[in-house]
Every structure is written in structure tokens, then in C-alpha cells.
């Protein structure tokens, strides 16, 4: 049976892993390559690296870092942050990334999704949505979650899938960093509406939050950062727990 995936996310800034609450107040959380290796060993199903400074400071994701990660780890990983062209994607995939994630650049130029899917295959095109509740409506935000757009989250998610993206990474900015659980209602709505996999992100604080997002949220995968970086939850322990709740997970020795 296809398993639900647990995906540690490494927010990278200047070559170091960082974590903040609601994208501000960043704390150092270690060397990304070392952390990647540790998570792989502990049973992570995939990894995501987001260069969080890239969009704001116009800095390109570090191809060199991707190269180091690819040499070291033997599970799939996604790279995002500041990617806005076929050339960016080509450089990252050639360096060994399995998938790339785009966000603001897809909002700005939705055709980019189609172009990347056609050129590199849907399977490597992840579109990330940062969503926030504004006056009772789910609204897409860009630039690291700072700037609201005119897009409604559900409509944008549908368009992303129609444009042939391989996967959607849905981050609730209202939940991110709060450790109060994932935005399961919204995630379920998106996941059931679409035929592409949906990764739930933002709000993981304890193991039951993962149970909830897989059962209530119908998520295909769940992503979290700080609880893994600061060892509040161990990956192996989490997976064993999910298995006791009849959620299909990959258990490694």
C-alpha cells in the first residue's frame, strides 16, 4: 500500500537551517547537509529545502548546497526558493534535486507551471501555496507569506493542478509555527477536489496533529520543520505511532 509521507522541511538561509514563527524571528537550527543525513537515517520519506531568503533578497538557491545534499542522501528531495525560470530549474535538477518548488513566481506567471511540466515532467514540479485567512476567506500570499494577492486559495489550487503541476504544498500561514495543528479543514477541501497529491504544512506540534491531517485532512504527505530540528518529535517514534493508528507508513530499521 502506498504510504503517507513524512517530510522534514529545512528552511535554509545563507547555507544554514533556520526556523522562526510565522516566517519571522529566525533561529539557527544547524547544518542542512548534516540534518538531511540525520533525517534520512531516522526514516524521513522525503526532504524539502526552502531557501527562504531567496525571494525577498533576490538570491538564487544555492546550487552548490543541492550538489552536496544529492551526493550524501539517498531519498528524494525538493528544492524551493526564488525559482523563476526554466534555467533555474534546469540548474537545480542537474545538481541532483528530484523536484523543485515554485511559489511567488507561479502566481506572477502561471504559464511557468505549464512550461516546467512540459520541459521537465509534472513529477518534478511542486507548486507551493502560502495561504492566510483574511476576513473569513482563504487568500494566497506571496513573498514569504508577507504579501496578500487577489487569488482565492481553492481556485488557485485548482488552476495549479489543471496546469499540470505534480504536487501541491499547502502551507497555512495562520498555523505555521503555532504548533496548534494543521489546517485540516482546508487541506481536506483541496485534497478531495484534486487528483494531485497534497502536502500539508504549517502547525505541527505533536504526533496527533499528524494523525489528524492524514485522517481528517486527507493529506498525502505532511511537512514540518522545527519539531524535528529541535527534536521535540523523533521521526521513528512518529511513524511507529502513526502505524498504531492504522495510517500506512514506511517503517525503517
Amino acid at each position: 500500500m502506498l504510504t503517507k509521507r513524512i517530510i522534514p522541511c529545512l528552511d535554509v538561509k545563507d547555507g544554514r537551517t533556520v526556523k522562526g514563527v510565522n516566517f519571522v524571528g529566525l533561529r539557527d537550527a544547524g547544518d542542512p547537509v548534516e540534518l538531511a543525513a540525520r533525517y534520512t537515517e531516522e526514516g524521513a520519506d522525503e526532504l524539502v529545502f526552502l531557501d527562504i531568503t531567496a525571494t525577498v533578497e533576490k538570491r538564487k538557491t544555492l546550487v552548490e548546497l543541492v550538489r552536496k545534499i544529492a551526493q550524501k542522501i539517498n531519498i528524494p528531495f525538493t528544492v524551493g526558493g526564488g525559482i523563476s525560470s526554466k534555467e533555474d530549474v534546469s540548474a537545480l535538477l542537474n545538481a541532483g534535486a528530484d523536484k523543485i518548488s515554485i511559489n511567488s513566481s507561479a502566481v506572477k506567471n502561471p504559464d511557468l507551471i505549464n512550461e516546467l511540466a512540459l520541459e521537465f515532467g509534472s513529477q518534478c514540479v511542486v507548486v507551493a501555496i502560502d495561504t492566510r485567512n483574511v476576513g473569513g476567506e482563504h487568500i494566497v500570499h506571496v513573498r514569504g507569506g508577507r504579501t496578500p494577492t487577489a487569488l482565492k486559495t481553492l481556485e488557485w489550487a485548482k488552476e495549479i493542478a489543471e496546469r499540470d503541476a505534480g504536487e501541491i504544498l499547502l502551507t497555512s500561514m495562520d498555523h505555521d509555527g503555532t504548533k496548534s495543528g494543521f489546517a485540516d479543514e482546508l487541506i481536506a477541501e483541496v485534497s478531495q477536489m484534486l487528483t494531485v497529491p497534497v502536502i500539508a504544512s504549517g502547525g505541527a506540534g505533536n504526533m496527533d496533529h499528524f494523525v489528524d491531517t492524514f485522517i481528517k485532512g486527507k493529506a498525502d504527505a505532511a511537512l514540518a520543520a522545527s519539531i524535528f530540528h529541535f527534536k521535540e518529535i523523533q521521526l521513528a517514534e512518529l511513524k511507529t505511532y502513526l502505524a498504531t493508528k492504522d495510517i500506512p507508513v514506511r517503517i525503517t530499521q
Partner: protein
Amino acid sequence: MSVVIVNYNAGNVQSVTDALNRLGVQPVISSDPEVIASSDKVIFPGVGEASTAMSFLKERKLDKVIQGLKQPVFGVCLGLQLMCRHSEENNTECLGVFDIQVRKFEPKLKVPQMGWNTLTNMNSPLFEGLPENPYVYFVHSYYAELSNKTVATTDYVNPFSAALQKDNFYALQAHPEKSGKVGEKILENFLKL
């Protein structure tokens, strides 16, 4: 031992190279028929679309080269599908090493299948020393039907051929280069053939 990765502009060559490097093997990456034919082991990887990949292979006469290989050949992901007779993906005539039809998954579940699933009914030297029903990483929308050349099955929407074997030809639908320690063991087993 010389190992060649067939380079036909269909992705993931870097990942396969990195995985082999981790096993201490330095592969040659080539689309040169002579280099491929004279290598001890041939890895035929692939991510992408079937008809584009077949056109590229035919243009460079690599289709005939691959069909005629006598040394161990390992098709991975799209490589497995191209080694079959025909694919529903853009109605593509493939290499026909395995007399098997490649079909698209019915959209009863999310398509592509993306993630970790189990290998079952394993019956090949590729799987020597692996635990029972190990997990490997899949990303695919098309699958090879079951046949008497099936040496491992996986269930997604329906049971399909996760691995195929005939004479010197071996193939895996999953990505060994991305399947953690299990994948490493499969690659290692292939190199030992």
C-alpha cells in the same frame, strides 16, 4: 568493472550517478553505441515521456543497441516501460524486450502514484538479502501489466509489475537511487550479477 549509464536526455542521470558513487562505482555516462555495447553493466534510467524518449533512442540507433545487449542491463522507471512492447503514453511502440503492454493507471486513486510502496512476490537476484516486502520509492502514471516475466509486484489501483526479468535484462519501476538502503542493496545486487 565498467558501468555505463545510458544518457538519452530523460532525466535522473545525476541521481543514479550519485547513488553508484556512494557504492564506490564511477559510471560512464554515454549515448555512444560503442561505449554502451562494450560496458560490463548497462543502466538504462529515465524520467519523462515515452514517445520523446523513444524518438531520441531511435535517432541515435540506441534502440537496436539496447535490444542486442548480452551483458546485464538494468532499466529503471521509464527505462522499464521502454523495455516493454508498447506504451499507452502517446501510443508509443517501445523496445519490446518484454512482450508486455504499459497502461495508464485508472484514476481511482491519485495519479501519479508518488511515494513509498512495497515490493511483493520478489523472485530475482536483484532482491537478494532484502527484508520481506521492502519499501521503495515510486513516481509514475503508467505501469507494466503482470506477466510471466514479472519478478516483483506492487499494488496501486491494481497489481502491476514492479520488476521484470528475462535473460540478461532486468528492470524496476521504482527508483533504486532514491529508495534509501533498500534501493542501495538492489543496485549493489545488480552490480554483482
